[in-house]
């Protein structure tokens, strides 16, 4: 379906003889480098990833089943102009997300003004009533957002999903670039690529900027991980290491006097900022799941007292909930005063009878998602689904319509990708990482490109056969050349 007439980001529209001249050098590179050589480099990169331990554990399998996410050697490229307009849209969207969170956990003006249904927010399990009234240091809730974008044409970008809890994948952005610089240095001679290696510094500055005690570079920042059995542990240790901050587990922290302390060989040290990679549910057994062993008892009290910054703040899940997502254009407009620069994918809220009827009538054309699902699970891709799958979803939709949204199947853009049969187009998405600190928003010029390695597949999740690519953002000089 989508494959044949999809927009290719390097070759242009199907049947377009000119393609995209700005990327001609990349086409040359793909044509002149023998596939065997590309394959050799790709294998070298993957071997390096394995040796570094950039693996993810597959739940339910032995530890020996640690896997690496497949890496594709052919990069994806954005021009400086494309990046500039994307950045503007991202800044606007993330500022709105933070304004929304501050409002929802504060005066709830947007509900009073009837912009979105009160119940959708207040009765949503992602809204944490116990945190109402929270004033996080410097007013920032979602310090790190990963915004998932898809593309359907030269200037047509869409936000597919916001990730405002603990978005992962930035280590792949950085390690993929390292691998490309080592294995394909010639590409970086031909293109002026914006560097991304400053991301850890930008992240550290963001963390330091929200320290409640100030102290600038002296603020004690830590990264809280569930431990090395977590599938994203490599990323946790990689980021802590690149920022030069302690990688702590719950047992390293204790709360006393509404302050958080870490246990060191010299005694305890007060912690100012915690970049936590533990879900809300497991963060504090006194307030959330009482059976959590990963959490720090009392940490929410320290947060509510304003003595520690939690990055991201607990309760941010309400901003990336799929039911809320469909209202993002209204939310952006409400807080920024202007139209959303990055559009949403059209979304049918199946909780609404009309939308439900449309969805049921067009199941074979739509993508249906659980509002609280993630990772590509609980999802129906109509055009490629079997009749049995469609009927299964029809029954589920009728039983619990409020749990679903539906979206049209987009003709996602493709990027040339090394496959067993040589270079062929594969569908991609893109997750840039947006940092919000005490001094405003920063975006490192790059992101994580995920690629659906199966021919025709639109599902890019690593658990469903997806891989990653380096994403090159060109600097301004390139345009003039």
């Amino acid at each position: 379906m989508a494959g044949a007439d999809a927009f290719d980001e390097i070759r242009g529209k199907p049947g377009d003889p000119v393609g995209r001249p700005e990327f001609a050098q990349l086409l040359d590179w793909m044509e002149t480098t023998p596939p065997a050589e590309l394959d050799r480099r790709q294998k070298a990169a993957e071997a390096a990833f394995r040796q570094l331990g950039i693996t993810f554990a597959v739940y339910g399998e032995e530890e020996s089943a640690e896997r690496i996410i497949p890496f594709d050697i052919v990069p994806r490229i954005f021009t400086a102009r494309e990046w500039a307009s994307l950045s503007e849209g991202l800044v606007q969207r993330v500022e709105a997300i933070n304004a929304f969170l501050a409002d929802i956990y504060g005066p709830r003006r947007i509900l009073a003004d009837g912009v979105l249904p009160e119940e959708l927010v207040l009765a949503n399990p992602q809204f944490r009533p116990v945190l109402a009234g929270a004033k996080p240091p410097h007013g920032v809730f979602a310090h790190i957002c990963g915004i998932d974008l898809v593309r359907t044409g030269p200037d047509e970008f869409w936000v597919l999903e916001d990730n405002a809890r603990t978005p992962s994948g930035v280590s792949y952005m950085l390690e993929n670039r390292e691998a490309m610089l080592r294995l394909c240095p010639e590409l970086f001679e031909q293109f002026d690529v914006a560097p991304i290696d400053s991301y850890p510094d930008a992240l550290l500055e963001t963390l330091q900027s929200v320290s409640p005690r100030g102290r600038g570079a002296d603020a004690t920042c830590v990264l809280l991980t569930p431990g090395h059995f977590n599938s994203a542990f490599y990323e946790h240790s990689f980021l802590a290491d690149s920022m030069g901050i302690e990688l702590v587990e719950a047992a390293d922290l204790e709360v006393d006097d509404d302050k958080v302390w870490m246990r060191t060989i010299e005694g305890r040290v007060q912690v100012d900022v915690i970049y936590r990679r533990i879900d809300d549910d497991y963060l504090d057994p006194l307030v959330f799941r009482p059976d959590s062993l990963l959490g720090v008892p009392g940490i929410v009290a320290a947060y509510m007292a304003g003595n520690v910054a939690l990055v991201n703040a607990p309760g941010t899940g309400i901003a990336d909930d799929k039911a809320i997502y469909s209202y993002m254009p209204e939310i952006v407009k409400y807080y920024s005063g202007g139209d959303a620069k990055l559009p949403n994918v059209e979304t049918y809220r199946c909780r609404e009878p009309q939308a439900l009827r449309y969805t049921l009538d067009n199941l074979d054309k739509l993508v249906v998602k659980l509002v609280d699902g993630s990772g590509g699970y609980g999802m129906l891709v109509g055009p490629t689904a079997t009749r049995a799958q469609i009927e299964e979803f029809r029954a589920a939709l009728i039983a619990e319509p409020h749990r679903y949204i539906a979206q049209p199947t987009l003709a996602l853009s493709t990027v040339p990708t090394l496959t067993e049969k040589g270079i062929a187009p594969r569908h991609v998405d893109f997750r840039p990482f947006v940092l919000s600190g005490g001094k405003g928003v920063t975006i490192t010029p790059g992101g994580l490109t995920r690629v659906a390695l199966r021919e025709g597949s639109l599902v890019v999740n690593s658990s469903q056969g997806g891989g990653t690519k380096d994403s090159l953002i060109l600097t301004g000089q390139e345009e003039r050349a």
Partner: protein
Amino acid sequence: MRLLIQHETEYHYTEPQARVVQLLRMTPSSHIGQNIVDWRIDVDCDARLKQSTDGFGNIVSMLYLAGPVERIGLRVTGEVLTEDRAGAVSGAIDPLPPAVYRRATELTGPCEALLDLLRDHEGAKGDALSRIHGLNSAVCRLFPCKEHRSTDVRSVGEVLEARSGCSMDMAHVLIAAARADGFPARFVTGYIYREDPDCGHREAPHFWAEIDVPEYGWIGFDPANDMCPNDHYVRVAQGLDFRDAAPISGARVGGGHEVLAIGVDVSLSQEQYQA
């Protein structure tokens, strides 16, 4: 009424603990019908106590103890002036709109047995208020209320299957039923004064529900006694379910077991007799 409250909690540990952190939701606030004259929490060992307010509007105290901790004694004493308002709650600190209390939680999720209960009740005609009174009575008739608090915190499904429970379990059932029926409902922790002198000393606080009734606002319903709270009740904390409003949520670092003893005593103030 002028009620005197004494609530003692004692933790014993079979092995000394390295640290203990507790979140106490044991301080009531005044509202119409409930005036706090005096209230204090005493801890009988070296500890740090920090007070604040949570998102539900509860006054919470964090209790921090550094080890080795072998036992903790907590004593809450207070004096409260109460007035019978037929269950109506007004003027209470209530930072959240009723819509918050519409969601089902893990403990109050709907289940078949609950839907059966509601179906049996479907015939009940009348306005919302009398419908809820009916629900309250129906929950009261399910099983006799146990004096001792259940050791496990159970979901409504488990309670209905076991057909036995304490006031906490009954409150959860009523809350789940009310929410399934379309009313915002919340969980309340507090104390109850009993005139029967044999009931003087109890082993748990009392738990009941509050339901947002159209045109009336929040009204208390106590399914354990099939009534609306009157001047015998002192309201302390509220939340979506027990987990949000438990008098004590605690965590400890150390081995061994925890042995808990609770004594709750609610009596009439002496001054009442002298008057």
